[in-house]
């Protein structure tokens, strides 16, 4: 019953969906724990309020290490808001209020003893518009390890920079110009630089908020390939409003609608035979 799911063998329909065929109520969502491998983050009954307005209603989802999880949904459905809860970036918004329990490796991330700064190193984030620091490529990558004290010597730092750039697939293109400004790279390279920067602080989870929406198709394909390579080393959660990208890149997909989690399941199932009508309407282009 508990098979590790592999996207390539999607012809079989592994019975990992516990609530098959049952009607789903608005307030609870399916969570997949069985068959997913070790879980990195769990969320239970998360609500997010911006002042009086409720942006996220009672969402529970698990993020496993071996899966790339995609959040899809129409604009304003709350997928980015929910993503930002996972590394407490919503703390920077004064009127935002988050309730519910979110854990990273079993620790509650909203507990008083959790250091937000360290949390954000363990749960890295890549943003929609590539935003390298206006420093050299080397300093961009080295900044994180420096402020967290991850390297004891210049050699160690060099090693971290090189391995991060290699993991991000950028080393070959920039190895002889590490002192050039990070902002002089092309858009796709800048985004890979930002991914390398997130990798440099040795995270456990990488959150990506529409990472390819500002990039051309070739750069997008490179990033998708990179995500594929990073899978299994880091738990990856990607928010995208390009359904085809979610289909290509993820093993689990969550469909959000007006702040609720409508459906969460194996990606191939969601896109060939979704359970909920709202999901079906959205992915076949009948929404709205």
């Amino acid at each position, binding site marked *: 019953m508990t098979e590790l799911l592999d996207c390539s063998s999607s012809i079989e329909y592994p019975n990992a969906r516990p609530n098959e065929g049952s009607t789903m109520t608005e307030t609870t969502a399916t969570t997949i724990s069985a068959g997913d491998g070790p879980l990195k983050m769990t969320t239970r009954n998360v609500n997010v309020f911006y002042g009086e307005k409720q942006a996220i209603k009672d969402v529970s989802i698990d993020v496993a290490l071996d899966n790339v999880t995609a959040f899809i949904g129409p604009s304003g459905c709350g997928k980015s808001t929910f993503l930002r809860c996972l590394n407490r970036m919503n703390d920077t918004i004064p009127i935002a209020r988050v309730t519910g329990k979110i854990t990273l490796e079993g620790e509650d991330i909203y507990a008083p003893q959790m250091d937000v700064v360290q949390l954000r190193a363990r749960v890295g984030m890549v943003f929609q518009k590539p935003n390298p620091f*206006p*420093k050299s490529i080397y300093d961009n990558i080295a900044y994180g390890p420096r*402020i967290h004290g991850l390297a004891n010597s210049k050699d160690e730092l060099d090693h971290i920079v090189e391995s991060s750039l290699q993991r991000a697939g950028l080393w070959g293109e920039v190895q002889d110009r590490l002192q050039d400004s990070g902002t002089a790279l092309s858009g796709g390279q800048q985004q890979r630089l930002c991914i390398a920067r997130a990798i440099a602080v040795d995270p456990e989870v990488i959150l990506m908020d529409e990472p390819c929406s500002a990039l051309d198709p070739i750069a997008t394909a490179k990033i998708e390939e990179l995500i594929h390579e990073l899978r299994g080393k880091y738990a990856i959660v990607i928010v995208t409003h390009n359904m085809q990208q979610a289909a290509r890149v993820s093993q689990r997909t969550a469909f959000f609608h007006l702040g609720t989690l409508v459906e969460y399941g194996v990606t191939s199932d969601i896109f060939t035979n979704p359970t909920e009508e709202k999901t079906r309407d959205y992915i076949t282009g009948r929404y709205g």
Partner: protein
Amino acid sequence: MNSAATPVKKRTPTDWQGAEMQKRIRKRYGAERRFKFIGLGAVLISAAFLAFLLFVMVGNGLRGFTQTELPVELDFPAMTGGASPSQFEGQNAKANLRTLGVQDIVEASIQIQYGEEGTNLFSTGGWQRVRKEILKNPDIVETKATIYLPVQSDIDVAYKGTGSDSAEAKVAELSDSLSTGFNWNFLFNSDATDPMQVGIWGALKGSLITMFITLIIAFPIGVLSALYMEEYAPKNRFTDLIEVSINNLAAVPSIIFGLLGLAVFLNIFGLPRSAALVGGLTLALMTMPVIVISGRNAVKAVPPSIREAALGIGASKMQVVFHHVLPLALPGILTGTIIGMARALGETAPLLMIGMRAFIATPPSGITEPATVLPVQIFLWSDEVNRGFVEKTSAAIIILLLFLLTMNALAIYLRNRFETRW
């Protein structure tokens, strides 16, 4: 979704080539041309005013850098009764000079050369140059030397332009002996009663000390306030009130700050009157709002994506502010600081209120000594009756302008160095 229930009324096709359109095009071109000319005209008028100012100042002031001189023959061996050069070297030089009585020697030589009334021809402090010469070159006491000494102010004025009738007569009389030399005194002396002896150094040093104090007080306070208000302060009515107050402070007339300085620093704290410290404090109060405003704008201009990127990899708030926001905001902050400092440099009213209008004959050696600043010095000289001060005032203005220019150039250099390209 796009079903048209009611048919949309058809528009008449636009005639882009018709006469109406051509007229509009011509009007538009005309408006743009007119605007260009008006803009150019505005620029030219401003440039003309500036040119006029420079022309008048330089024209009046250049003469202040020169002085009219007459030669004096000094027969040192005869006058000193055989003094030897070694007396005027080393530590005892100055003491020995005093006993020598250089002034008397000089006056005697003048009387020999130009007659009884000869001393009236020369500026009272002129003999100092002889003293300087001896100190510079003690061997001169064994020779007969001709040293050029500056003339009296009236004669100087008459020689350079038009003066009183008696002075003109003297000039006519001595025309072949008179010559013009560079007025080094002007650059190294302080205030004096004799226009031939005045210099700007005292005021300049006072300005420098005052500016320094202003900078080290206003810059940190202003920048830290700006950072706090933009990055840390919660957005509520209280902070709004503070923000409005600071904005208004920047527009307050400078003389009010002078009153403030008088009441607080002099009366309550009992700091010494006319000291550079008090002047610096008063000007710092005046400059700080400008720095805060430009600092806040510079910090606001840093895009939030940089902050998010830094937060995203686990930088603390302080690290975000000091590693990322501040360096990017620095060019804007520096610009604001320079604007503030340039304004402070030229302020007269508040400093007059705190008493920096005294007659300062020696440059200040510390921050609590009485001092004056260049604009105040200019103001005081312009009040003088003696005709000789006219050109000195203009010359001082030139020095002030040069000072401002240097400050601006330094500021632009610093700003360019810290400017990071996006």
